[in-house]
């Protein structure tokens, strides 16, 4: 659960990770991250504890995401969880799969 909610003061390096839309359940690391991080979601900043190292540009779960549930980024489904994912866990090719089928015309 978030340790605190506070409005974003806009100061330099006031956030470690961002979401791209209000319904996102993952955030993207703005630099290599570890431990307690500040996530900017809209105008709010919330704190969260990571359970893995997250490289810059990579995603982590903002809440528990059950196996088969959609990963939401940009307000859209970018894949589904292939296992139960914990809050603060690294979300990437090892635990999500794309929903995009093969293009028509290819077997």
């Amino acid at each position, binding site marked *: 659960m978030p340790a605190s909610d506070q409005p974003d003061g806009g*100061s330099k390096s006031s956030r470690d990770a961002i979401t791209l839309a209000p319904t996102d359940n993952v955030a993207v690391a703005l630099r290599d991250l570890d431990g307690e991080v500040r996530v900017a979601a809209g105008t709010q900043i919330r704190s969260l504890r990571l359970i893995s190292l997250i490289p810059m540009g990579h995603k982590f779960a903002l809440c528990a995401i059950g196996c088969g549930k959609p990963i939401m980024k*940009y307000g859209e489904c970018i894949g589904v969880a292939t296992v139960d994912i914990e809050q603060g866990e690294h979300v990437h090719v090892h635990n999500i799969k794309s929903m995009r089928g093969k293009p028509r015309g290819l077997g």
Partner: protein
Amino acid sequence: MNAMTFLGFPRAKGRAGIRNALLVLGINGLVAPSARRIARNLPGCYLVATPYGRGQLGLDKDMHTAQLVGLGSHPNAGATLIVGADRPTAESVADAIVARSDKEVAVLTLDDVHEDALLLAERSIRVGGALARSISARRRCPVSVSELFVGIECGHSDATSGIASNPLAGAVADRLVDCGASVVIGETLEWLGAEHVLARRAADATVSAGIVEAVEQRERSVAATGVDLLYNNPGYENVRGGLSSIEEKSLGAVAKAGSRPIRSVLRFAAPPACSGLHVMDGPGFSPESLTGFAAAGAQLMLFTTGAGNSFCSLLAPTIKISANRAAVQALIDQIDFDASALLDGEGPSELADRLLARVVDTASGTLTWGEVLAESDECFARFGGSF
């Protein structure tokens, strides 16, 4: 918002120009060397010379003509000097340019000089020189921002593109559309995986179907060559950078279009029939993609990059944007707009306002690095081989 203006050059027909140079337009590869010789002697002109122009049939020929007419009609050209091989083709292109833009056009061809390339150059320099002098009397005056048509492109994207610079470009696209201006994105295969999301934002069912069909058609063409677009896509570098699926990659790419309704799917190089946001069915290769936007009438481009991409449109001043701090610092005289503050905590809305102000500033005459360094070109897309 509605009162926002830039200082531009009103044109007889169509949108105002944000620049006012003579365009030397070589319409056949046979006279490209002559066009270059002419342009060398008219400093300050735009030179666009196709390497093609004969031995083309069907769609390939029609699209080549569409690009010539579109570029020849461009709002940033104060006048166009057409340099051609045979007079009938040159006059046909000239007529189409005049019909579309009422632009002042002069035509010189090898037919007029008994195939003497040196004489062609000499006559063209004199005629072009008179045109350049005449258009220099035009002055900038306040023009509504609604007359802007901005093309948005990405190239050499990295982990910062989908989370910072593309959403930033999209926020500016929204502001432009809300002012009554026009915006276009292209690179059809970059919609792959996000096409149903784009289709949902279409203004009507026809546009929606058109978006999906444009992607499917390109997929089929690629599959016919034996290539699987979804194999190793996202690729190794993408995955290392954090992209987990094709949906995520494409959503990051189309973020540069913003959130407003999509009014139409434009055929390559075709001008939009109304203002607002449009998507153009075209290649991902930036030189061709940008020429498609310019031929459609886009006066200015926003070009997001990650690690860097030097290419700019020749006719449309191109604002290069990156949120990759290292690239921005290393390429300080090639990247026009530093978006890395988004990663440090600057509010996205404030940064979008700043970029919009830069768009207006550029439209009003401030040069981009691409213009200062002439790091630019127009590249004619082919739709078939020569016969």
